[in-house]
């Protein structure tokens, strides 16, 4: 490893920085952390739970638990290893609680009767939200498909195969600067494609709140 690599902030150090700031109560840092690991956590939960809405609810619960447990995170293991364990335990607990709920069906009926007055039950996705999520996935897939081949290859080598910039440069037989540029341009193309859709969605959410 050369000295230039040593000066870089590794992904593990980046996580540790965000964790440290979140511990100090900087919620913006915690938000960046959640968005960084949201999909990995959802993938873990999906191994236990099949319902997509439940997966989202449990993912949210996992990150709330993560936030509460942040003072206990000492950084001995990687942040992902730590939240992986929390995700597995939360998923298992969710399944146990769900089986209990099924056994106590009477209680479920009572909950259903108080549906309108219960805040917890109002977090269900509206048809609008389901539609916009579908649109998001479609737009994303379309934008990826439309990427020029060199950008698409670079981003897939990075995100799917998990190669480092050096390894991608070797694989694509180009300078590392070109790899940096290609990966960024691929991401930026997706960012540009998503922005109008996300702006519409946030506008719709605001109207829904009003």
């Amino acid at each position: 490893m050369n000295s230039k690599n040593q000066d870089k902030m590794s992904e593990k150090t980046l996580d540790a920085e965000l964790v440290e700031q979140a511990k100090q109560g900087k919620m913006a840092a915690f938000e960046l952390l959640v968005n960084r690991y949201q999909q990995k956590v959802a993938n873990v939960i999906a191994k236990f739970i099949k319902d997509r809405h439940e997966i989202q609810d449990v993912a949210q619960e996992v990150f709330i638990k993560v936030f509460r447990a942040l003072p206990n995170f000492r950084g001995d293991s990687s942040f992902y290893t730590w939240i992986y364990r929390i995700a597995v335990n939360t998923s298992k607990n969710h399944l146990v609680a769900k089986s209990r709920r099924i056994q106590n069906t009477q209680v479920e009926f009572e909950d259903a009767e108080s549906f309108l007055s219960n805040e917890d039950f109002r977090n269900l996705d509206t048809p609008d939200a389901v539609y916009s999520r579908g649109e998001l996935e479609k737009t994303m897939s379309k934008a990826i498909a439309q990427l020029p081949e060199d950008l698409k290859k670079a981003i897939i080598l990075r995100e799917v195969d998990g190669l480092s910039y050096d390894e991608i440069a070797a694989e694509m037989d180009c300078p590392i600067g070109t790899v940096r540029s290609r990966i960024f341009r691929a991401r930026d193309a997706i960012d540009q494609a998503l922005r109008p859709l996300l702006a519409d969605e946030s506008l719709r959410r605001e109207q829904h709140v009003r």
Partner: protein
Amino acid sequence: MSDKSKQNISELMDGELPNDCSRFLLKRMQSDEQLQSSWNNYHMLRSCLQQEHDAPLMDNLGAAVVKQLNAGVESIDTAAPNRFSGWMKTLAGASIAASVALVAVFTFNQDDLNSVQNSPVYAKTSQQFINPPNASMVRVEQPTGYTRYPSLTPQIQQYLSESNYQPQIPVYYNTEYVNRIIIQTRQKAQQNNTAEE
């Protein structure tokens, strides 16, 4: 927002940005919505490419989580590590159990003390007859259900109750005659005790 800043975000999330730039960018991102939005969208692309078949595509879950944390009672203060874990919990539980047992033992023994110390007080005048002196000390006959010997049969409990050294006499029977009987009974009991010793 410049392309350079966005490229820095791209490199930061891959661990390819120098330390000093990374720290600066992290600080800046927390107060710049455009940069946050790019971070989220870049990660959403990652999510889409890493998404497994059964899992839904996660979209800015961080905002929902932070909103819930801010709205709820959750706070980093209340999330302080629980110092009373493991053996401390066991010890605390054992202490509580021991305290309860101790209270039970003392309460039980208090009956015996009361039987000696709080001997019945009897009214001697007509006024005292209406308002007995030191009324709280007056013995009240308890049903056998409240016996100190719950494991014994009702007959034996009755026997024990009747053969007690302090006869259960209602307060309105209070006369000098009754007092004399009591004194005699006590003397007799003491004599028996001395004889046994």
